[in-house]
């Protein structure tokens, strides 16, 4: 079973991972974006960790809902509402249970990913975070490790794609050959699930 403490560790591990990889995310965002993905997410997840330390919500749903709200408020770029919606909708889908099963979490995360697709209008293959999140959710039924691998492979697989959403879409064919920064940061979020359990 996964409790509120697990989800707090997930957010903390994500923040640490984003800290470590911020420069790489921004470097990926330089040729096809506006070179702020790393610093934007760093600001957002730092705010999430601060908020969780202060408020200490006691259910999985409340942890993720709070995290989502903080991301929407603090990120400043499109990744704020997108990641914010992902976590908030996942949290809402978990309801107010004190503990949830991995199956319940998988279903809730799928609802969150669906909400992100609805918000941004992106589908798999558009070279966005969806290309990491959809295979990750599919693999989550197997294990956290399988989800991590699927997300990382999904992020790498965005490289030959042409962007159809966001600023990168203005570049047309010039977006081809660059790994998508949003799919890459999504693989960090999914990868942090394993760290949250190992602690």
């Amino acid at each position, binding site marked *: 079973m996964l409790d509120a403490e697990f989800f707090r560790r997930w957010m903390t591990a994500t923040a640490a991972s984003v800290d470590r990889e911020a420069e790489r995310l921004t470097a990926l965002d330089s040729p096809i974006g506006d070179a702020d993905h790393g610093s934007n997410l760093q600001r957002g997840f730092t705010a999430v960790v601060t908020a969780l330390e202060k408020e200490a919500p006691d259910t999985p749903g409340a942890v993720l809902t709070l995290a989502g709200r903080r991301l*929407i408020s603090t990120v*400043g770029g*499109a*990744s704020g509402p997108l990641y914010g*919606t992902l976590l908030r909708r996942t949290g809402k889908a978990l309801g107010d249970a004190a503990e949830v099963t991995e199956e319940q979490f998988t279903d809730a995360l799928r609802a969150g990913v669906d909400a992100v697709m609805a*918000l941004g209008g992106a589908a798999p293959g558009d070279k966005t975070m969806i290309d990491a999140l959809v295979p990750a959710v599919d693999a989550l039924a197997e294990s956290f490790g399988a989800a991590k691998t699927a997300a990382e492979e999904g992020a790498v697989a965005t490289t030959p794609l042409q962007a159809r959403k966001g600023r990168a879409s203005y570049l047309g064919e010039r977006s081809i050959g660059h790994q998508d920064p949003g799919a890459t940061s999504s693989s960090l979020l999914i990868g942090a699930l394993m760290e949250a359990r190992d602690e």
Partner: protein
Amino acid sequence: MSESPDSTNQFVGIVLVSHSAAVAASVAELATGLAGGETTAPVAAAGGTVDGGLGTSAELISAAAASVDRGAGVAVLTDLGSAVLTVKALLAEGDELPANSRLVDAPFVEGAVAAVVTASAGADLAAVEAAAAEAYTYRKA
């Protein structure tokens, strides 16, 4: 444009969200100036991030919407990407924007002028939204 102001004279509020504080403020000034008249509908600019950078601030958007809410609804116009997504996410949140707030699908500058002129004539939210959206149909070439 056909509606007359109701008895309490409550204007629809307009919020202009841009990635740039200067763009949002200038478009607000342009739209208010072109609306002319003695009294114009309340317009608030929510441009850039809280620290003055380029981007979108949910905080500034919520504050701007609250500042123009007179009870007749709030029309929110945006420029690009994260501005659109942030407003949609705030609307989905439910309690971050005044009741009867709406993201209006319109070109930013032309839509803002149409929205402010229409709202200042006392039109309701649906009429303001329609006027702003109609700006899309004006072709320039």
